[in-house]
């Protein structure tokens, strides 16, 4: 499982931060954001040291909602950590 707060380098030669990581229906889904521009985001399924882009539109909506909740709940601690 990929954990929130990890830095990963992918085969596209970019570095991403694991912004959020959740278990949904038994699978590990991650929300990645590049650490260069902070704009290239990806919603992926993690499996066997690979990340696979989520293709199902409905699933993407579900994931957005879940990542949003997860990050909102943790925003306060992120800010606190930075102080």
């Amino acid at each position, binding site marked *: 499982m990929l954990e929130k707060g*990890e830095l990963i*380098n992918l085969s596209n030669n970019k*570095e991403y931060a694991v912004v959020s990581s959740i278990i949904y229906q038994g699978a590990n889904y991650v929300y990645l954001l590049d650490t260069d521009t902070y704009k290239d985001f990806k919603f992926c399924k993690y499996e066997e040291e690979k990340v696979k882009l989520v*293709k199902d539109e409905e699933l993407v909506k579900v994931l957005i909602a879940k990542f949003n909740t997860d990050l909102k709940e943790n925003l306060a601690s992120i800010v606190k950590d930075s102080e």
Partner: protein
Amino acid sequence: MNQIWNESDIVIVNGEEYLNDSASERLYQVYQDKLNPRGRQLYKLSWAEKVCVAVPRVYEPAKKEPEPQPLEPKAQKQEVRENNEVFNLENAKKVLEDFDKAYSANPRLDLGHYLLTHIFKILDVRPIYTIDIIEFGEYICSQPKYKDKDISWSPVSLILPQFESQVEKIIEKKGLEVTFRLLLKSPANVYDMVNYLLEKGMSAAEIANVLSKFLSEKDEEFQSKVEDFLKDDIETKEIYDKLKNNKKKPNPSNGMSAVEKFIIDAYNQEAANPQMSAEQWLFSLLDLIYVSFNLKAEEVKDLIVKNVVGKEPLNIDILTLSRFVIEKDRQIKYCEQDVDVLIDDLIERINEKSPLDVSVEGLELVHYNVTLEKWEEFNSKLAARIYTDLNSSSVVDPVKYKKLYYLIIASSKISDTTLIGKLEEKFGLFKNELVAMAKEALERTRQEDPFEYRGGEEKQPLEALPKEFEDDEYSDDDEFEIVHRRKPMTKEGKKKILYASIAGVGIISTLFLTFVQGYNPVTVVAECVKTFGALLKNNATLAQLGVKLGQLSVYFASVIVSFKSFFKFADTFDESKVNNKIDKKEKRRKAEPIEEDDEEVDEATDDDYSFIDEDDIFDDLDEEDIKRVVKR
């Protein structure tokens, strides 16, 4: 409460016998000694009295001869009760106190049933009191402790069956407006009510005035009922037209014109029992006059000056009057104005000092002074004009974009406007509006500090706008191998995680609000900037993030632009869907030339942004830039 009576059952109310007539849904009091179709004298009772009967009893012949009854016993009895036992809120509250005690002993007690039984039994309420009962009902509903209780009794329902016979009394006692309100709380039909009141000889002007008041009510129920009445069907429209066209011309030959009499009557009525401030009354009077009479503003002003200005107790002064007449006149002109002229006027206003306030005010002015149909037309034409202007701009005109941007923002501040909806529906992802918005934000930043911005070199707004994601950023590869993974241990690594987390919150919130919940992206960006501005304020560590992210509105606008790319990305989920979309797009292109325009704008924008180096956007900004954003 749901007691069923059989035909010819005799029921007992307050120790007296009544005959039930289920065919007419009435109870009849029985007087054995008088002849009638059933061999008895029947006294008609109201439905309200019927429902208070707790237990029906099958008639058994009386064992003793009944006492001879007077010819009009009920009327006499009622007169006595009216004198001695008047229903009012205070004694009704005592009934409530009794109920509280009884309820604590028996929580299954029904409040509605209890009140009906006791109030009617004790106070012998007749229709004359129904309005007091309504006040009482409203009092009950306003008490939090009764809110959870099952109040099966609706006070308004009590008056409905007898409303027709009471309407004049209620109008007389409470006025037309209250009467309307009572009706609108019930399932009663506004159409029937207006017709009925017209038949009763009520003033069309007064009815129209009450209706127009309801249109501006905060109570949505009232508002929608009247609006439905005004727009629903042809018959209704005819009545409304009748109201509008029933304008009484002044007749100077009578010595005093109709409008003068109208003003004096209205003044005396209000002076005797003032319900409003002098200003409110004056505005209401002007409404009435404009609905009822064909007069010019100056004529109205002269008549009011002649008849009521300076008189006690309202003491209307001439300056207030002039102000109101001018305002009213402007409103009337708005109503009669062509939609295109209104739009020109609005755009003209936006060139004034506070464009946002002016455009909000301008839109509100139009909104509240034109008919629904005209407002629809206004919205539609405004949307079309914004779109045309945006698409026809080959050369960037910051003033023009500023105008349009404020229009969009202003229209989103009016809750029921359909403008934003129309734009979304027509033009998709709001890209053009966002372009305008981002330009505007940068333009404003530069205007605040034009010489320091980017080392004092003035740039065109277009240059500062972020380019869209390159296509290869969302490559066709859908699987990536993790080459290296680690928990950051260095300060630099931790900072990367922190920045990504903060930026990630912004992006996911934006996506959640737009993609999942369907909010307007323009509003979402504005809110994100506000939230992040507050977050970064007074936090030195996070301010560094602001430096990295650059100007926040630009950053979030770029997220929205990338959001479009995300859709493209999402479209590739399903090959068949893609093909299908391509087919549809081809068809649309053929059918709708507007799609080609859209495409041209896309291309133009891409070209314009293609030379921008993102590093310019982020690296050249310093803390001052962030402060500017935070300040906003």
